[in-house]
């Protein structure tokens, strides 16, 4: 029978992780990190926000982009879910709508890597009609 991963294995991993993190702290300042927030209220989750978040976490690491991916609530753009908010260092946050894995891939390659804007941005001056 194969052995099941346990907390003891996590302990073994820690030394390796520590050196990786020390290296990252030395090379970059925290303000230099890309921040990504995935909207995860009922509307976002029902539209596939979980897959998008998992994709972003994995791919940003694979592509060596120092980023932090977190979750946020509903911004009122339920029609455009999944939505994500991307904040590049020293820039205003930009909200993208209708994000699936393909769109997330585009956002990484174009907006995050080169700053090029792409379709699907929800303008900040957009206001809902009451």
């Amino acid at each position, binding site marked *: 029978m194969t052995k*099941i*991963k*346990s*907390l003891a*294995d*996590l*302990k073994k*991993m*820690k030394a390796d*992780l*520590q050196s*990786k*993190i020390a290296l990252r702290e030395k090379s970059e300042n925290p303000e230099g990190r890309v921040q990504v927030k995935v909207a*995860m*209220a*009922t*509307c976002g*989750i*029902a539209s596939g926000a*979980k897959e998008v*978040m*998992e994709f972003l*976490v*994995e791919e*940003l*690491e694979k592509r060596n982009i120092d980023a*932090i*991916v*977190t*979750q946020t*609530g*509903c*911004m*009122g753009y*339920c029609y455009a879910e999944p939505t994500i908010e991307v904040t590049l260092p020293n820039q205003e946050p930009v909200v993208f709508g209708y994000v699936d894995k393909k769109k997330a891939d585009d956002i990484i390659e174009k907006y995050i890597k080169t700053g090029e804007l792409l379709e699907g941005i929800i303008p900040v001056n957009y206001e*809902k009609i009451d």
Partner: protein
Amino acid sequence: MKDLSLHILDIVQNSIRANARNVGISIAEQAGAGILVIEVSDDGSGMPQEVLERVTDPFYTSRTTRKVGLGIPLFKQNAEATGGSLHIRSVIGEGTTLRATFSLDHIDRPPLGDMAGVVVILVSANPEIRFIYRHKVEEEEFVFDTAEITEILGEVPVNDPQVMRFLKEMINENLAALRAPTI
């Protein structure tokens, strides 16, 4: 929602918004009794009676960004579609416990889904909250407590992708072991 794990991801957002420090997620699969019980409990702000009476109303929400609140109503509807039920207990200043019971073998019961992925997302996005996830299959139980994880990790953040991957694998392997026939 495609599966129950997504409902849990959604319901826990309520606990986060209620400023909970501790969140418990318990799942019990009881083939003998033919039921599946999901419980989410928190030590958040709790709700007054008049709010509690309205939370299952899809046109009630505490949000201002939209006018509907479908998280709890959808979960309730799903539970009731299998002959089950959803109950909430809440005490102001103490917290809230939501309990949904599903008929385990009912054709309308959604699959459990990717619990490992959901737990890891919750833990990594809310490192300041202690999550205790208990999963019981008959009498076998797996307990995942983020307090143990953060104690081991020390200054290593729990939302490091490598840690997230490890935790997901660890949960998946333990859940598989719960279901494996014991020899």
